[in-house]
């Protein structure tokens, strides 16, 4: 919990004093760099400064500390406990080391033992403000045979900035502080009883001449006894450290939140599945460096949009930079045809000498598809069948089998570069030939139509276009899921399927293409998703048959 706990004492000689204080030091944020973290600065350094500043001024007053005002001896470095799970360190000293906290605790201590006292002078109370923090305080007496009135007054304060949190925790704090207090009281009571048995103080005091001025001094060394001596508990401060640390931890974890987040997208699932497969392969091969899941996650920020996997090395030379760029270079009609082939799952063969150019084109084109639908052969020296790859880069001299080039199920693009270097791609448009594009009209899957609108709108930045594309893909993936459930899992008939297509908005103009797209994209669903749907059905069947 964002709080600190302190034990305070009203010393007969010196008034309210802080005896012992446990604070929780939180690790730096586990999150990626936050705008605020820079402001927090190096806490440790600051502590040091404050201390040297204040230490000189207070050096003269140190002599005022009596036994009763002190917990750990001056030479004691304090206690620390580390919560290994969270990295929180619980530190105990007589005072908080940070000057601001010092004065907060000081305030809390003085108020808890002077004005903010509950009736009967023993019990819980709440006070505070935004400037000095809020305080849950519990005052109590400890028996002392040598003290005025045979008892000494203490308080345990819990200080926090979150007022509501502290009040919410009231019943919990009260329950556990009572345990602490009662335990201290009963231990001290035993000591008190023993001492009174040996030497009844009442009688001693009745018999001695009393003068208020000299009373504290009469008892000289005993005037202010430490809590250790009152409880005869040799490890009292270590135990209190443990109790307070536990209290801070337990109060912070008393309530836990269960917060759901959205299911991962299909693209994420597929990427994770592929990575797991890779890891397994590597393990099977006998080790090697395991790719870390965390690494890939951080790389996924942008990767989701383009399905970035196994990108080959960067090479110099002209490149396609975005879908819009590709469209500009190819020309609207050609781009539309190419995109159509990509969306429908036809094989796209790109022949040329410039590997880098072909790779950049594939990287951009595969963003049109769900990750699960993308199989790329970046640059091959021989033809690969369509079931192995839907993006195939070839060197110009590789022969394409006749059945492929005549079937109409592949888009073959050919580029030849003459100039090298930073030449703009526009100049190569002339050298770019597209073969084998179907002339079937109209080529109008709804998704492509919408994408083209975004691409042609020059007011939209490349980022906006990729967001639009993501929206479109997710929208159609959700239709794919329904169709998969309907036709593959439940095995419904044609008539029902038609109804589903209608309600998904896949019918009407471009229906044939839409359906074709849906069917192709179905192959890109993650195994996780498919098996989940299958088992869910079996689960339901089981419950029905029971």
């Amino acid at each position: 919990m964002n709080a600190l706990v302190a034990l305070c004492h009203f010393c007969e000689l010196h008034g309210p004093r802080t005896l012992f204080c446990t604070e929780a030091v939180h690790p730096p944020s586990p999150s990626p760099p936050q705008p605020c973290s820079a402001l927090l600065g190096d806490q440790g350094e600051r502590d040091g400064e404050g201390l040297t500043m204040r230490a000189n001024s207070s050096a003269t007053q140190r002599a005022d500390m009596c036994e009763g005002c002190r917990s750990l001896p001056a030479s004691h470095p304090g206690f620390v406990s580390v919560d290994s799970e969270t990295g929180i360190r619980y530190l105990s000293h007589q005072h908080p080391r940070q000057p601001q906290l010092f004065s907060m605790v000081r305030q809390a201590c003085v108020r808890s033992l002077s004005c903010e006292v509950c009736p009967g002078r023993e019990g819980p109370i709440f006070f505070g403000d935004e400037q000095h923090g809020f305080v849950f305080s519990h005052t109590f007496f400890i028996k002392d045979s040598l003290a005025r009135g045979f008892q000494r007054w203490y308080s345990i304060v819990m200080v926090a900035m979150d007022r509501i949190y502290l009040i919410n925790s009231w019943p919990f704090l009260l329950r556990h502080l009572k345990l602490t207090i009662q335990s201290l009281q009963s231990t001290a009571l035993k000591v008190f009883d023993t001492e009174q048995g040996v030497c009844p103080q009442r009688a001693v005091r009745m018999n001695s001449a009393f003068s208020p001025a000299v009373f504290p001094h009469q008892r000289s060394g005993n005037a202010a006894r430490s809590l250790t001596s009152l409880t005869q508990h040799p490890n009292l401060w270590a135990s209190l450290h443990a109790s307070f640390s536990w209290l801070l931890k337990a109060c912070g974890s008393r309530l836990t939140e269960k917060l759901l987040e959205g299911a991962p997208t299909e693209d994420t699932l597929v990427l994770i599945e592929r990575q797991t497969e890779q890891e397994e392969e590597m393990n099977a091969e006998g080790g090697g460096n395991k790719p870390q899941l965390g690494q890939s996650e951080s790389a996924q920020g942008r990767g989701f949009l383009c399905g970035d996997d196994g990108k080959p090395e960067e090479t110099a030379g002209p490149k396609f930079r975005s879908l819009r760029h590709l469209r500009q270079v190819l020309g609207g009609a050609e781009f539309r045809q190419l995109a159509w082939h990509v969306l429908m799952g036809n094989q796209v063969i790109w022949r040329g000498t410039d590997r880098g150019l072909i790779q950049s084109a594939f990287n951009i084109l595969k963003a049109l598809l769900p990750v699960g639908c993308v199989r790329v052969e970046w640059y091959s020296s021989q033809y690969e069948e369509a079931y192995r790859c839907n993006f195939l880069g070839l060197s110009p001299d590789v022969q394409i089998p006749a059945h492929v080039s005549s079937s109409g199920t592949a888009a073959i693009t050919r580029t030849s570069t003459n100039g090298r270097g930073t030449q703009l791609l526009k100049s190569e448009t002339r050298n770019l030939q597209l073969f084998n594009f179907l002339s079937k009209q109209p080529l109008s899957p709804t998704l492509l139509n919408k994408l083209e609108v975004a691409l042609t709108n020059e007011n939209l930045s490349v980022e906006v276009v990729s967001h639009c594309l993501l929206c479109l893909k997710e929208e159609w993936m959700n239709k794919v899921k329904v169709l998969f459930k309907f036709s593959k899992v439940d095995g419904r008939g044609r008539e029902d399927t038609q109804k589903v297509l209608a309600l998904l908005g896949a019918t009407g103009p471009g229906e044939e293409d839409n359906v074709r797209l849906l069917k192709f994209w179905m192959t890109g669903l993650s195994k996780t998703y498919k098996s989940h749907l299958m088992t869910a059905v079996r689960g339901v069947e089981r419950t029905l048959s029971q």
Partner: protein
Amino acid sequence: MCVLVSLVCLVLVHSNPVDMPGRGHSEDGDSGIARSASLSSLLATPLPSPGSSSGSGCASSYQRRWLRSQATSLQHGPIPRWSTEEMFSLSDESCSSNPAMARRKKIAVSIIISLPEKEEESHSFQEFFFSHFPLFESHMNKLKTAIERAMIVCRRVAEASQRVQVYLCRVMEALGEFRMTVWNLYMAPRITEPVWLTMVSQSAERNQLCQRFLKEMSLIMDHGAKNQSVFLSALLTAVLMYHLAWVPTVMPSNHLPIKPVCQKHASHTVDLLAKSHPYNPLWAQLGDLYGALGSPVRVCRTVVVGRRRELVQRVLYVLSYFIRCSDLQENTQPPGHTDSPANPCPPQTTKPTPLSERTNEKPLTPESELTQPALFPERTNEKTLRVDFVDTSPAPVSERTREKGPVAGSAEPSPFPEVTNERLECAEVGQECFGYNNDSVGAGLEHILASQSPPVQRVKFTIGSPREAEHEERQCGLHRKLPHRLLTDIRQSESSDSSLGDSDEEEPLPRQPYTAAEMREHELPLPSSCQTESRPSVNHFGRSLLGGYCPQYMPDFALHGISSDQRLKQCLMADLEHTVLHPALDEPVAEAVCIVADTDRLCVQVATSQRRVCEPGRLGRDVMVSNLIHTLLTSVLQLHTLNIAADFCVMHLEDRLQEIYFKSCSLAEYLRGQRRVHVKELGLALGIESSDLPLLAAVASTHSPYVAQILL
């Protein structure tokens, strides 16, 4: 339980008017400025945009919680989050033309709540009280405001003898209101199984839940044919637009789901954050329910009005799926477990003593009851609120109330017993306002006079025992208006203005003559947590603020139903204004909104604290149905009619909600760096229709705060 509220007792103490040095006329205006300044600084709070990376999981929930944990952290020293006006402001703006005459009175209000006799009932009320403290406090603030007004009004009464009567009547009326609200807050019926929370907490019965949810939803849609379906679409548009906590629950995560696959899972990052940087989960939950996730911060409630009980309940049930919040678990020691790490002197470390000697020792029980806790918000302010739990013997009132029906059966300790639909009695006001005859100030008092019940002995009030305020030492420093800072000036070291420490001798700060290396603390093991069991928490807002078909309008509930909007119409605007001034959320709020859905007239209106009612008889403006929501609803329900498994339909519903989230990302990306929006362009380019724009903008504001500034 009725005992409880009938025993709420108001103690008012105030002193003679005293001049307040340094609190002149000008400062009243000052407070107003400070308040509006807090709002603008809130708007300008630089929240990073997690929307910039689309795969960021629960980013906005995480962000909110992280900022909270930082804002309430002690590690940076005290950072006042806002300066609360804790004082009674009793200056009558219209009368105080002469600043020298502006005088302040010192007033303290105590509310004493007597607990029920049965220990179990007493225990559950206490648990409820402390976990719902912000709501109680908000009603205290309302009471405070009413007393202020009473003070001002009674000053206008010419005749001295009547002045007290007018004052008393007003105060008693406010007290009656307070009691009734508290009683209602505790006793009103709740939705027994809110769909979303039940799904979160019990994944085993998911299928049945989904079935029931879809069935109820399609019943609403089918019922009145077209009108009804438009009604539900409109209602859902409004709910999804303002109760924004659903957004993080559809933001895709980057982690492989553990189990059940493909379904949502608990956010790991938030879990880790809670452990390492604790924040108040109850606060987070309250913010979720009120939809305070956007920027600027808006809080929202939804009220469903209708005479057809079944229909209203059905609508409430369906909405309990869309109004979301996190589920809370409570880690407690199993009952009977007395050994606690909180005990610094466990038996083995102390010298064994014969039992007979321990005469004064009380047996330790984990559930040691509260004896006399008291709650004192700062003394340094003029007002002292004090809540006393006094275990007094039950008043004779309990006899009477037990006959009243709703209370009779509720012997069970559950804080939410079923309450019959019977209309609640107006809270009794136990003192007669005699001699009252001033029409100009007495508006609204008739019903108090009319509904007088036999004097309740427990209600006692002491007013006007004049006592010169002895503390003239109000330090100006304490009242100094602090600049509103969140995390900006953490570094600025604040001089401790220790007013108390000044009078006292300064406690020496221990000298640390050691170098950093020497100062290494003795490391001790952290005590292993004593055995705890995790059980669903009962006293959290998710269970208490999703109300059922209530006998009366409830100002606190995130969702509830009522049969008539009569009282709603009376209170709504004042309640919304109050919410903005004294948000129960413990953070500044820019706007308070209430969605009112009328199932009889099939209309949905949104009332807001920002705009006054335009037309007479109307609560707010009508909701434009978002086309996205309408198609979403219809296609989910069509899937349902095609006999697709309910579980799958709900998954599809979630997918469609996720689509809305993605669309909001596009919108945010589009608006980045823009000054003005062309709605037409949005439609063409992004496929965003104008009917969807308000919804998408609200969703976008949860992850990209700049959106609101461009669109609104």
